[in-house]
C-alpha cells in the first residue's frame, strides 16, 4: 500500500512541465474567450454572415435553373450557332406555362431582363398567351407570339442560366458582358458606365483626402502648439461635424449652396456674380461638403501624433544649426507621417463608401459607387448587381490597404 502511494505521488510530480503549463494556460484562454464571445457572436451574425451572403449573391444566381428546369436542361448541348430545335421550344413552353400557373413568371422575366433590357414584357406576354395554347408545335407559335424567341440572344441567357453560378454581375460591374455565343465582350457604350463610376469614386475620394490634409494639417499643428485652454475651445469647433449627423450636415450644405442660397445670395449682393453660380448638384459642392464632414477624421490622428512629438526635437535641431523651416521639414514633419498616413487612410476609405452626400449635393455625374449599390438594392431589387459592385469596392479597398501597408507599414500608423 505504502509503495503504491509512493509511486502515485511520484507520477503527479513527474508530469511534464509543458503539460502543466498547457493546463494552466487553457483555463486562462477559456476565460478570455468567454469574455469576447458575445461580441464575436454579434459580429458573426450581423456582419460576417450578411457580408458573405452578399458576396455569394454576386456570383450565385439559380433563378433560371430552378424556375425553367426543362428549358435549361434541353439547352445543355445547344451549340448556339442557330436557333434551337423544336424539342427546346417545347420545354420552354412547358416551363413558361408552369411559371404562369405558379405566378413565378415575374422572377423569370426580371432575370432575363437584367441581361436583355426590355425583354421582361415579352417573356410575360408569351407566358400569358402560351397558357391559352393547348399543344405544339411551339417553335413557330412562340416566334409568332414574340420575335424575342426568334433571336439567339435570349437562348444564350437561358443556356447560361442552367448553371447556378454566373459571372454576369461581376462582368457587368466592370463593363463587360456575354454575347449571344456566351463570349465575354465589352459592353456597348450606353451600358458601359461602371468603370467611369469607379474612377469617379476614386478621384472624389483622393480629392477630398488631399483637401482635408491641406486644411487639417496646419490646424492640427496650431492645436498641438497652443496652450490647453485655447486649444480645447478650438478643438470643440473642429469636432462639431462629429457630433452632427451626416444627413443634417449635408442638408445644411444644400441650403448654403442652392441657386438662391446663402453663398449665391452674398456673392450676388456684392455684385461679384450677376447670376447664381451652379454650386448645388455639382462636383464642387460634393467635394466641399465631403471635405467638411471628413475633416476631423484626418485631423485627429495627425493632432494626436503631433501632441506626442517632444518640442525639444525642434529645439535640438535649431541648436544644431538648422533654420526654422529646415528643422520643421527634416525633424518635425517626418515624425508626423504616421498620423498623416492614419488620417488619410481613414478618410480615403470612408470616402469610397459615401452615399448620402453625393446623393443630395451631387448631380447625376457625381454619383459614387455606393449610390449605384443603393439604387440596385432599393429600386431595381437587383441584388446580384448590388453585391457585385460591393464586392469589387471591398476588394479594391483591401488591395489599397495592402499596398499602403507594404509602402508605409500598418504598424507605423498611429490613430492616437
Amino acid at each position, binding site marked *: 500500500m505504502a509503495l503504491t502511494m509512493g509511486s502515485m505521488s511520484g507520477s503527479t510530480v513527474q508530469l511534464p512541465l509543458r503539460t502543466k503549463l498547457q493546463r494552466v494556460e487553457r483555463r486562462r484562454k477559456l476565460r478570455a474567450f468567454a469574455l469576447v464571445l458575445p461580441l464575436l457572436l454579434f459580429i458573426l451574425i450581423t456582419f460576417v454572415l450578411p457580408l458573405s451572403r452578399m458576396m455569394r449573391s454576386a456570383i450565385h444566381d439559380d433563378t433560371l435553373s430552378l424556375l425553367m428546369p426543362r428549358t435549361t436542361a434541353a439547352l445543355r448541348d445547344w451549340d448556339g450557332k442557330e436557333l434551337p430545335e423544336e424539342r427546346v421550344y417545347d420545354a420552354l413552353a412547358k416551363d413558361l406555362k408552369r411559371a404562369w400557373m405558379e405566378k413565378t413568371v415575374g422572377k423569370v422575366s426580371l432575370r432575363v431582363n437584367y441581361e436583355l433590357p426590355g425583354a421582361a414584357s415579352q417573356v410575360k406576354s408569351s407566358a400569358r398567351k402560351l397558357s391559352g395554347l393547348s399543344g405544339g408545335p411551339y417553335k413557330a407559335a412562340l416566334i409568332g407570339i414574340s420575335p424575342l424567341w426568334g433571336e439567339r440572344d435570349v437562348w444564350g441567357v437561358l443556356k447560361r442560366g442552367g448553371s447556378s453560378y454566373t459571372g454576369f454581375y461581376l462582368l457587368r460591374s466592370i463593363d463587360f458582358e456575354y454575347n449571344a455565343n456566351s463570349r465575354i465582350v465589352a459592353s456597348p457604350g450606353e451600358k458601359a458606365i461602371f468603370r467611369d463610376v469607379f474612377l469617379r469614386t476614386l478621384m472624389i475620394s483622393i480629392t477630398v483626402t488631399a483637401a482635408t490634409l491641406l486644411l487639417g494639417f496646419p490646424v492640427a499643428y496650431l492645436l498641438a502648439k497652443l496652450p490647453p485652454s485655447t486649444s480645447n475651445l478650438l478643438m470643440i469647433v473642429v469636432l462639431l461635424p462629429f457630433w452632427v449627423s451626416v444627413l443634417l450636415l449635408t442638408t445644411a450644405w444644400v441650403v448654403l449652396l442652392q441657386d438662391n442660397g446663402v453663398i449665391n445670395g452674398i456673392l450676388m449682393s456684392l455684385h461679384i456674380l450677376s447670376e447664381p453660380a451652379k454650386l448645388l448638384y455639382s462636383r464642387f459642392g460634393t467635394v466641399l461638403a465631403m471635405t467638411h464632414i471628413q475633416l476631423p477624421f484626418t485631423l485627429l490622428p495627425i493632432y494626436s501624433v503631433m501632441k506626442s512629438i517632444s518640442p525639444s526635437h525642434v529645439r*535640438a535641431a535649431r541648436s544644431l*544649426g538648422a533654420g526654422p523651416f529646415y528643422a520643421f521639414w527634416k525633424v518635425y514633419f517626418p515624425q508626423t507621417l504616421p498620423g498623416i498616413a492614419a488620417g488619410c487612410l481613414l478618410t480615403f476609405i470612408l470616402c469610397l463608401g459615401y452615399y448620402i452626400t453625393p446623393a443630395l449635393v451631387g448631380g447625376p455625374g457625381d454619383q459614387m459607387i455606393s449610390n449605384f449599390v443603393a439604387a440596385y438594392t432599393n429600386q431595381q431589387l437587383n441584388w446580384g448587381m448590388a453585391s457585385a459592385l460591393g464586392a469589387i469596392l471591398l476588394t479594391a479597398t483591401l488591395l489599397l490597404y495592402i499596398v499602403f501597408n507594404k509602402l508605409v507599414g500598418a504598424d507605423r500608423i498611429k490613430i492616437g
Partner: protein
Amino acid sequence: MLQLNRKQAYKGLQHPGGELVLRQSAATKSSLMPPNGHVGDDAFVRFAGIQKTYDGEALIVKDLNLDIARGEFFTMLGPSGSGKTTTLMMLAGFEVPTEGSIFLAGRSIGTMPPHKRDIGMVFQNYALFPHMTVEENLAFPLKVRKLPKPEMEARIKRALEMVRLSAQGKRRPAQLSGGQQQRVALARALVFEPKLVLMDEPLGALDKQLREEMQFEIKHIHENLGVTVVYVTHDQGEALTMSDRIAVFNDGVIQQIAKPAELYERPENVFVAKFIGENNQLSGKIIALNEPACTVEMPGAGIIQALAVNVGMVEQPTVLSLRPERVKLNPLPGSLPNIFSAKVMEVIYLGDHIRARMSVCGRDDFVVKLSNSEGIAHVEPGVEMTLGWKMEDCRALRPS
C-alpha cells in the same frame, strides 16, 4: 533625506524685497570678482543685467550678472523654478531676455536666432531624432553646415569613438539604452565642434550608477576637448563632482558663485548652506562681535562661539550653520570652545557612516554624522553624552 531638506529650505526662503537688494549686490560683487580669478573682460560668456518674466508680473530671473571663462565647466545649481533653466534657454536663444544683454565671445547675441549661435546643446530627454539612425543624428548638424562628405564621415566616426558607440552607428535611438542615448546626444552636441556646450540636466533620467559613470565621462570629454560647458542640474552631488565653478540659484537670484570645495566649506548664506550638503541650523542672537569670531546666545540653551561670515550688528539675530560631520563626540573638557551635553534620540545605520539624531541646546533635530569606525557602538537611543565643535566650523549667517 537630502531632497526633503532642500525642499524645506526652498519653501522657507520667501524673503521680503528689502533682503533681495542686499543679496543682489553681494552676488554682483562676487560675479565681477570670481573667486578663481577670472577677470571680467576675458569672459567668454557674459550675462549683463539680465531679467526675464513670462507673465509681465513675476520675475523668473532677477538682474543676473555672470561671467563664464573660456574652457570652464560652469554649473548652475538650484531647485526647480529657481531660474537656472530659463537662464540656459536664454543663452541657447530659445528665450529672449526681458531686459539686459548676453555676450558670447564679446559679441551681443540678444537677438541672434538659436541656429546661428553655434552652441551645442544636450537636452534633459536627449531629444534624439527618432526617425534617424545614430549616424544620421550625428550627421544632422554637419549637413546643415554643408560639410564635404569625407570630412563628415570622419567626424562622425571620431565622435562615435569618443563616446564608445562605434558599433551602434546604424541603430535607431529607440534601440539603445538610456545611457547609450545620452552618449549619442553628447556626441551630437560636440560633433560640429562648438566652442560652447550647454547641458540641461542631461543625467536626470539615468539610474544612480550610470549617472556617476556618465559624470566622469562628461568631465573627461570636457578636459580633453577644452570646450566651455554650461551645465544645469538640481543635483548638488553632480555639481560638486564635475564643476570648476558653481552658481547656486534660488528664486531667480544667484546666491553664491564659488568653486565646489569653497561652496561646501564656506557657504555665504543660509540657503547655500542648506542646499549644498546637510547642515544643522541653530538660531540665536549676536551678543559680541570681534572679527572673525562672534559670540551667539541661544535663548535658554547657552552661548556658542562662531565664525562671523555674514552677520549684521550686535543684538541682531543670526543663524548658525554646522555640518553634521564636523561634530565631535565626547571631547575632552576644555579642548573645544563649544561643548554641550546631548542625548541620542535616533540612530540610522547607512553602511559607511551612521547618522544620529540628538537633542542638543533644547532642539531635538540636531544631526550628527559619524564615520563607521571604532567607538561608535555605544551610540544608541537614550544614551547621554557631550558634543563639541570648533569655532571655525560653526558659521554665523544672516537669517533669511
